[in-house]
């Protein structure tokens, strides 16, 4: 195979990829035509989702998606960073580290329906107790339960990323910091972490992407109600969960079209967050590739 043909294959693959992606968007747009044109922006801000009267608004689901994902991220971040730092800086190849790595990788490979079941049997009763104590309706399921389980689901993404990028910090930098009299803690916080912050941010984006699109576990834990969440204990619904729940047995074309539009919105949210994330990474790394 000569160079030219090799280059051709690579280009072809790349073009195919872009075409597939464009096709995906086109399919969603074409299939959501029935609601896309008629309800316009009202679809995004609408609070009602009624398959009987065919009035569809996505706002409660958009809020449900964003709330669960960002709360999950907030809960998960400290734990993920801590494990990542421990495994990337302190105990890189000890028995503890190897065992911990295996378990973190396993965490990433657990099917989400299993997380959902575990959430129902372990997290929901716990949240129910908290809710009873707080004097709110003890649904158990809801924003809090979903966020807690999502938080655990996304730990592997952030902690593995943190661990891997920390391993790439040149030892010369570490030695330099230590030689200047820094303690190990100061070395990690002042030298290693700033060096890899864009890498960690990439891990956060990956985790957020997973949380935004997670369907099964959230469907089982969020309570599936078309209501705008007003507190941590509220029940609600997410974009992905509504589509998964209702699409199969949707009776009318308008209902199906509305769900296609939900998919489009979910895609858009992921794009915006990814794009904003990349911009932040670029800015913070100041042009240097943080790997």
């Amino acid at each position: 195979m000569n160079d030219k043909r090799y280059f051709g294959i690579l280009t072809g693959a790349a073009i195919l990829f872009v075409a597939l992606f464009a096709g995906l968007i086109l399919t969603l747009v074409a299939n959501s035509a029935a609601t896309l044109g008629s309800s316009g922006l009202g679809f995004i801000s609408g609070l009602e989702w009624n398959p009987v009267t065919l009035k569809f608004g996505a706002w409660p689901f958009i809020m449900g998606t964003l709330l669960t994902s960002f709360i999950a991220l907030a809960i998960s971040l400290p734990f993920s960073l801590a494990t990542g730092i421990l495994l990337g800086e302190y105990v890189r190849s000890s028995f503890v580290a190897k065992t911990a790595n295996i378990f973190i990788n396993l965490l990433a490979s657990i099917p989400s329906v299993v997380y959902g079941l575990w959430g129902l049997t372990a997290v929901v009763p716990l949240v129910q107790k908290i809710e009873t104590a707080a004097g709110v309706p003890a649904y158990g399921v809801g924003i809090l339960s979903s966020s807690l389980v999502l938080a655990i689901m996304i730990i592997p993404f952030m902690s593995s990323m943190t661990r891997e990028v920390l391993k790439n910090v040149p030892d010369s930098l570490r030695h330099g910091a230590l030689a200047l009299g820094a303690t190990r803690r100061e070395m990690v916080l002042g030298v290693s972490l700033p060096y890899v912050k864009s890498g960690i941010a990439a891990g956060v984006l990956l985790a957020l992407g997973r949380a935004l699109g997670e369907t099964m576990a959230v469907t089982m834990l969020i309570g599936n109600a078309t209501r705008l969440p007003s507190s941590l204990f509220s029940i609600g619904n997410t974009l992905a969960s509504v589509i998964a729940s209702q699409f199969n047995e949707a009776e009318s074309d308008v209902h199906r079209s509305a769900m296609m539009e939900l998919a489009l919105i979910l895609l858009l949210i992921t794009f915006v967050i990814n794009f904003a994330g990349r911009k932040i990474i670029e800015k913070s790394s100041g042009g240097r590739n943080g790997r």
Partner: protein
Amino acid sequence: MKINRVGAAVLMALLFSAAGSLAVAQSSSITLLGSGASFPGPIYSKMFDVYAKETGVKVNYQSIGSSGGIKNIMDKVVDFGGTDSFIKDADMMKYSAPIVHIPTVIGAVVITYNLPGSPELKLTGELIADIYLGKVSKWNDQAIQSLNPSVKLPNLAIMPVYRSDGSGTTFNFTAYLSEVSADWKGKVGNANSVSWPVGQGAAQNAGVAGVVTRAPGSIGYVELAYANQNKLAVAMVRNSSGKWIDPSLSSISAAAAGSFPKDTRILLVNTSAPDGYPICAMTWLVVYKDQKYGNRSLDQAKALVDLLWWVSHDGQKYAPDLDYAALPPPAVKAVEDVVRSITYGGQPVRK
């Protein structure tokens, strides 16, 4: 090691293809394809299994949901579709040729609840609607207490649970509530998924039953078969004749024993039959009235018509074991006429 694995995979592939060709060789050349409602999935797989053993005609049914079944028969990619709600007059126009409905078995939606001491409860349709509307929100509400004077009801919030997935169960439940409560009809209505004013959703029968078993004070609706198999507490419901009816196979069959329309398209909820349970639902197979379409052969049409006849006659005896109610005589009579009306190129397939 690697070679072993590849060898094993090849061996497996060979075994599977051998098993496959064996199965094909055993059966006759005709295989009937169907898809649709998942509610009758278990009874269909039992019936079709027996049918294949008795006649050699293989029937392949996929439980993809009523909407999918309807779409598949419309697209003519299956021999028959399965649906939990009959095709409405307005939708009949969308088909290129007339469609006929063949009811197969009857199921019921039952009300299950979680209360301390598991008392036996009596509920009316209006009350169930008020609970799901949020108008009755405590178990010791006068409306419930007055129907159940002998039960000591707790001062506990009622937590209504509904199906989060679109389902025929929800369709029939909301159809019943729309029949008995004008308020429900106006505020919520009737569909596979509706906009619930209160309560929480859970996926499938199992999800609803799961929430109800776990959460004291909750109330939910599930298929009778599911409630029976899981020994859930089930409420008696007052029917339109004013009788308190326990959902059972006989009270469900009774619901369809009244007058039966010729085209079998009947909404069984809120039946006028005096001993009928009020929240019952039939499930149907739908086929084209004239079987000569596409490149279908007369043999294929005959096989389908024979199957439909068998399902509504010999096949009925398998229903009770799986917690479905069999068709009562007036329904079977109507089915016979419908099956006899199926033609192939204008000629009746079965006389």
